[in-house]
């Protein structure tokens, strides 16, 4: 027969109460009140792409975050503080003065204060892209043989797409990361292909992801309109490239998302770039 003294029983009871009562406490308030910083700076351009917003529930398919328009946002360059101003109701902030310029090699600090939490981040403005050249100056689109039936039109479109490759090339001896954006200079749409063909081509949409190479190919024929196009190659930093990393995780070791922002989520990064142009014209 087990003989337990009153003192032993009391000790066991106390230990049980202590353990059972200590349920999960969330002592880390930063994890619960996190906000998101989405701040991009471009060399030679005004500071107007700084955005602060909330997170939103995991079960939502659409972004239902709430813009934060009342944060204190300061950009610091060479020890000098530049107070940013809210741009409206969308959570964007900009600098209103004329005494701040974003230049190659600048080391910039961002400080955001909201809800009692101070978030900080640092980035460096990379060197501009050098030696950007395109494989063509203009892309000629042939007349579609509308009078020869559907098969002939489909074949002509396929032939045009296969021959519409445009290569952008730049100097990258050190294997840095670059990113390319192709966009129409004009807002006016002059459709290259019939609407039905454009819809069918949606899956061929060119999306450039960060590359450590020195060229990117894309199909000019998948562009929507005749006209002049700007091809801009951005020299990017690691914190921006990290946003494209594999985003599958499991609960055994759930990692913090890629972020160079301390005490908050998101990214603060700077870009430098070079631009080249090409035309899409009728043959």
């Amino acid at each position, binding site marked *: 027969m087990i003989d337990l003294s009153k003192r032993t029983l009391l000790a066991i009871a106390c230990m*049980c109460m202590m*353990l059972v009562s200590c349920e*999960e406490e969330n*002592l880390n308030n930063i994890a619960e009140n996190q906000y998101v910083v989405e701040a991009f700076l471009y060399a030679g351009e005004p500071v107007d792409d700084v955005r602060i917003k909330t*997170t939103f529930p*995991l079960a939502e398919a659409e972004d239902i975050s709430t813009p934060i328009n009342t944060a204190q946002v300061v950009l610091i360059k060479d020890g000098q503080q530049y107070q940013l101003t809210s741009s409206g109701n969308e959570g964007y902030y900009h600098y209103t003065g004329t005494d701040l310029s974003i230049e190659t090699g600048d080391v910039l600090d961002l400080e955001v204060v909201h809800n009692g939490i101070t978030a900080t981040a640092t980035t460096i403005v990379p060197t501009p892209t050098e030696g950007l050249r395109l494989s063509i100056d203009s892309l000629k689109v042939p007349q579609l043989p509308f009078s020869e039936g559907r098969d002939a039109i489909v074949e002509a479109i396929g032939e045009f797409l296969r021959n519409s490759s445009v290569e952008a090339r730049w100097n990258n001896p050190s294997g840095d990361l670059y990113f390319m954006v192709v966009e129409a200079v004009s807002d006016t749409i002059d459709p290259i292909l019939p609407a039905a063909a454009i819809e069918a081509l949606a899956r061929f949409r060119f999306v450039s992801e960060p590359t450590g190479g020195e060229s990117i190919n894309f199909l000019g024929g998948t562009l929507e309109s005749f006209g002049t196009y700007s091809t801009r190659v951005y020299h990017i930093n690691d914190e921006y490239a990290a*946003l494209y990393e594999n985003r*599958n*995780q499991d609960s055994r070791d759930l990692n913090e998302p*890629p972020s160079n922002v301390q005490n908050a989520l998101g990214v603060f990064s700077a870009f430098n770039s070079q631009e080249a142009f090409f035309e899409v014209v009728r043959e």
Partner: protein
Amino acid sequence: MLSIAEKLLTAAFLLQKKRGNYTGWVSYTLARVRNQYDAFNNGFEFSALHDQRHEFKTVHSYEIDTNWKLSATFMYASGKPFTEPAGQYSIDLLDGENNSYISVGAKNASRLPTYHRMDVAVHYVLDYAGYDFDFGLSFFNVYDRKNIWYREYNFAEKPPAVTEIRYLGATPNLSLDVRF
């Protein structure tokens, strides 16, 4: 200076019967394990991954006669801690894409569901031609409890897809053990 601490509190009980046709034991462990690092989780204390508040195990074996033997095992354990996504956010990228990311909740502040299962087995032992044959039929996780090992998240989907990775369900086994 880096400071690391693991705080462990446990109490364990064991009751065992070793003699006779019926043998077995019952055990219970009450535990709390917490970690604290200067440079992690903003210096706050959090539950260790192997922190299980309650663990109860019981093993029973009964020899009906020299040939037949029955056994059963049951275990129950509190869910292990894990870090749960607290929410999500999206970033507008320069290529026009809008990528989703998670905001990670407090470190190891959530718990997986409790783990429990029962295994049963029956053995028939036969002495034939100088050999001992042991025929066994057992059922692992006999009531097919869907115990969760971990959760997998795919944040490339909207909303992020959550997949529960489970331990083995009800599984029958046949065995033959020959001794000579």
